[in-house]
């Protein structure tokens, strides 16, 4: 959905991630970009250059926060320091919505700094939804949860990944950050049909989409974010936009980062794949 209650009723277009190698270019050239996504944790500090830079960006651009360590799926309660710092950042950026991953990554206060896959069970879905509600109520901003790439599945799972995602977002009454590349990567690693995934999620809850590049190895695919988006992912993205409407879309490029113009050009390719969705909407 272009604008809905899960993305603060914002009809944002195509954005890119704000990354260190591009800071100088952005500040000097002030290129036209619909919006930037920032990694929240990079700016959850108390002072110094990161916040100065963020303020300069905020003067010129729309910014949306994307987190990597809230771990909605961890059994632990949310970390208070984390929440306090995140709320301060939300106030600073006035992000219209905030996203983080449908995963876990910490237990007993020890952090793996990874996006670990969930066991898809009803109890895990209830706990995850409870934490999403807790965080949203504290931060007072809409939340979208992102499906992750995964390399393992568990015997304990009671449902498919898309059923689990649907269960969580319905229980939490939150939005979805639909990462099309992650669906593709997981579909290859776990041999499921990515189109079935897209067809069976609550489309009206999609508040944002991600596309990215990945790397194929002999026996699995890794979500590396170090390449242009590959054709099968663009096709999947086109299908997602037909199903969900044209949401705010962001290209993730986090490693071997090329020039700003190259990244932005790659992101704008999304426009080539949303024609059908636009026709359907008009």
């Amino acid at each position, binding site marked *: 959905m272009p604008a809905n209650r899960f993305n603060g009723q914002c009809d944002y277009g195509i954005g890119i991630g704000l990354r260190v190698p591009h800071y100088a270019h952005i500040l000097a050239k002030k290129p036209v970009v619909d919006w930037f996504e920032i990694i929240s944790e990079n700016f959850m500090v108390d002072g110094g250059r990161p916040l100065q830079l963020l303020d300069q960006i905020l003067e010129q651009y729309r910014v949306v926060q994307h987190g990597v360590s809230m771990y909605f799926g961890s*059994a632990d309660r949310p970390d208070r320091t984390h929440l306090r710092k995140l709320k301060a950042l939300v106030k600073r950026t006035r992000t219209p919505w905030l996203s983080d991953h449908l995963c876990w990554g910490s237990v007993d206060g020890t952090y*793996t700094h990874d996006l670990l896959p969930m066991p898809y*069970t009803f109890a895990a879905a209830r706990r995850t939804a409870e934490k999403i509600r807790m965080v949203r109520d504290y931060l007072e901003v809409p939340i979208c949860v992102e499906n992750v790439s995964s390399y393992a599945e568990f015997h*304990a799972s009671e449902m498919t990944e898309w059923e689990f995602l649907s269960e969580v977002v319905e229980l939490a009454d939150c939005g979805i950050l639909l990462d099309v590349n992650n669906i593709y990567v997981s579909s290859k690693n776990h041999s499921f049909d990515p189109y079935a995934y897209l067809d069976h999620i609550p489309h009206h809850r999609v508040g944002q989409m991600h596309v990215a590049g990945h790397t194929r190895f002999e026996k699995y695919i890794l979500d590396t974010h170090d390449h242009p988006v590959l054709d099968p992912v663009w096709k999947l993205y086109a299908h997602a936009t037909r199903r969900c409407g044209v949401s705010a879309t962001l290209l993730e490029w986090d490693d071997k980062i090329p020039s700003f113009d190259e990244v932005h050009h790659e992101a704008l390719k999304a426009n080539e794949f949303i024609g059908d969705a636009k026709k359907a909407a008009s």
Partner: protein
Amino acid sequence: MKRPPKHAPARIDSTADLRRFQRMMAAAVIRPLDADDNLQQKWVDGRAMADVAAEYIKPNDRLSSFERLQLYNQMYWYRLLEAVRDDCPGLRAVLGEPAFERLARAYLTDCPSQSFTLRNLSARLADYLRAHPRLTAPHTALAIEVARFEWAQTVAFDDAARPVLTLADLAASPPRRLRLGLQPYITLLALRHPIDTFVISVKRRDVLRAEASNAPESPAGRRPTRVRRPRPGRTWVAVHRHHNRLFYKRLEPAAFRILTALQAGRPLAQAIAAAGPRVKPAQIQAWFTAWMSLGWFCAPGNKRRGRRS
């Protein structure tokens, strides 16, 4: 993290089950890699890791349960080792890459991350080196100082800046009662080696290497030009920032004593007395003028009180 359960729960019907499952998998993910950088063949209780992994991870037609778990185990270690390497170019230069690699693996094994942000990953490194001198022998004293210095840079980069005290604020209380806080981003270091110049040399070398070649490097292929370890030499330094740029300011010993006394919460008059009788008032006034212009003084707070190294 608490000890993992003997077995992962077959069903996850509650948050307690979920926690047991996550303890089991997290313990495997952060378990040290073997000598070939693979998942260890044995689990903590001596059982075959392949059997333990198969209890909770499904295999597929290309990867066994063990291999799927190994992917996460390897990604964890590669990611965190890279983060520690990035934090510690000076320490790497002191120890050399192989010794640093052994140290980093030992540190991460004993002190896994307790923070949501990788920014804090090296916060406990200097204390760890103190407690495990064999890992850095025969350069332990130097290694500890470099680790303290490199953590001070992290603090200087992004720790809080509180409102700067003005001359009017200072005039409001008599020196006998006036207490000044130091900005949280300042770390005062009394060192036995000139670590500031050493770290600058390492940074210059790394900048030159980056400019000389755009070829991507693998960690295994890193063979940096050696920067000579510093000779002993007493050094007093404040690691701080100014206009959001990182600086290392050398201090006279008496100036260092004044600042550490202020940071410990002692009143201004006592702090100045700590400088010693041989320091002339004009000199102290000049120091204070410089520190004021750098914005180093703020209202005293408990958070950083007494923090000095």
